[in-house]
């Protein structure tokens, strides 16, 4: 699978995403500057996290007008796979490629910590290696991560099986107490009606090595390529 990792002015997470795809998953991958519009050589485009345009005005607003993002509807229509992580999710919403908006966290504080997520639907190219109801742990790091949509949209997402991850407690219970940012229906990830566009607030690329505390995020990428990752350096048993 040929990957593109988009780079906007202010992208911060492109390097780790690139590194993960190229060395751990051994996939062909290229950085794609935001002014490019030819996506024909790629199977999957990833919009990485960061602060595109400083998150000024509204997160993702200015990036959503870039030539690259303007070329995405056609790419997606042709069956291309598209994943937006954190700021990438915000860009997808601003571009209208997914429904809804992201508002400031309920606490009005930036939140950076590991959270538990309950897996919903797994019949997407990004989640097929997860089990429904499974609880995974991924880091979140955002100020504007409170998912908002009107009731009708939320119903549509729910009935269409488009809610992929919800914030939960360690036992998988989706409660208000386990909702870090005030997202409607505790939504952390959703997909498009055609299931080939996914947006998510948590950072799977930061949880893809035991060394960094978790490999849960790797499952998202393994789902995409339909295979297992090469083993990263595993901490051997600490006994010499």
């Amino acid at each position, binding site marked *: 699978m040929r990957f593109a990792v988009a780079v906007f002015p202010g992208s911060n997470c492109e390097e780790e995403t690139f590194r993960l795809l190229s060395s751990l998953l051994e996939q062909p991958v290229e950085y794609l500057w935001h002014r490019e519009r030819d996506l024909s050589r790629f199977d999957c485009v990833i919009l990485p996290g960061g602060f595109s345009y400083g998150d000024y*005005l*509204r997160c993702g*607003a*200015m990036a959503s*007008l870039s030539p690259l993002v303007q070329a995405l509807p056609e790419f997606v229509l042709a069956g291309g796979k598209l994943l937006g992580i954190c700021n990438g999710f915000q860009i997808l*919403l*601003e571009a209208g490629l997914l*429904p*809804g*908006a992201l*508002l*400031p*966290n*309920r606490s*009005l504080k930036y939140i950076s910590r590991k959270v538990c997520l309950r897996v919903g639907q797994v019949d997407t190219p990004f989640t097929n290696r997860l089990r429904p109801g499974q609880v995974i742990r991924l880091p979140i790091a955002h100020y504007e991560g*409170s998912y*908002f*949509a*009107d009731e009708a949209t939320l119903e549509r997402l729910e009935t269409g099986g488009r809610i992929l991850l919800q914030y939960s407690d360690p036992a998988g219970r989706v409660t208000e107490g386990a909702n870090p940012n*005030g997202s409607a229906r505790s939504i952390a990830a959703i997909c498009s009606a055609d299931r080939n566009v996914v947006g998510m607030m948590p950072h799977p690329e930061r949880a893809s090595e035991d060394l960094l505390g978790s490999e849960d995020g790797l499952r998202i990428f393994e789902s995409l390529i339909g295979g297992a990752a090469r083993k990263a350096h595993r901490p051997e048993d600490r006994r010499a």
Partner: protein
Amino acid sequence: MGTTKEKDLLQAVIHVTLKPGVLDPQGRAIRQALHHLGFSEVEEVRIGKRMVVSLDRKGGGPARERLEEMCRSLLANPVIEEFHVEMGEE
């Protein structure tokens, strides 16, 4: 406000506000903080943006239309926001 000598400048103010029904956590937090400070008469606070845009009148088309186009294409997000353009006196 108004014009300067060199360029034919026009100043407009764009107000972007949250649609009714969209939660405004910041407004709520400010109301609470005002109550703590003793301003108990405050019933509600809603926060929006105020953008002052200076335009060179010689570029582009009729100013109001251009400003509304800017709002639709960038300055406001129709999912959660409304906008209002207020032209400055010249």
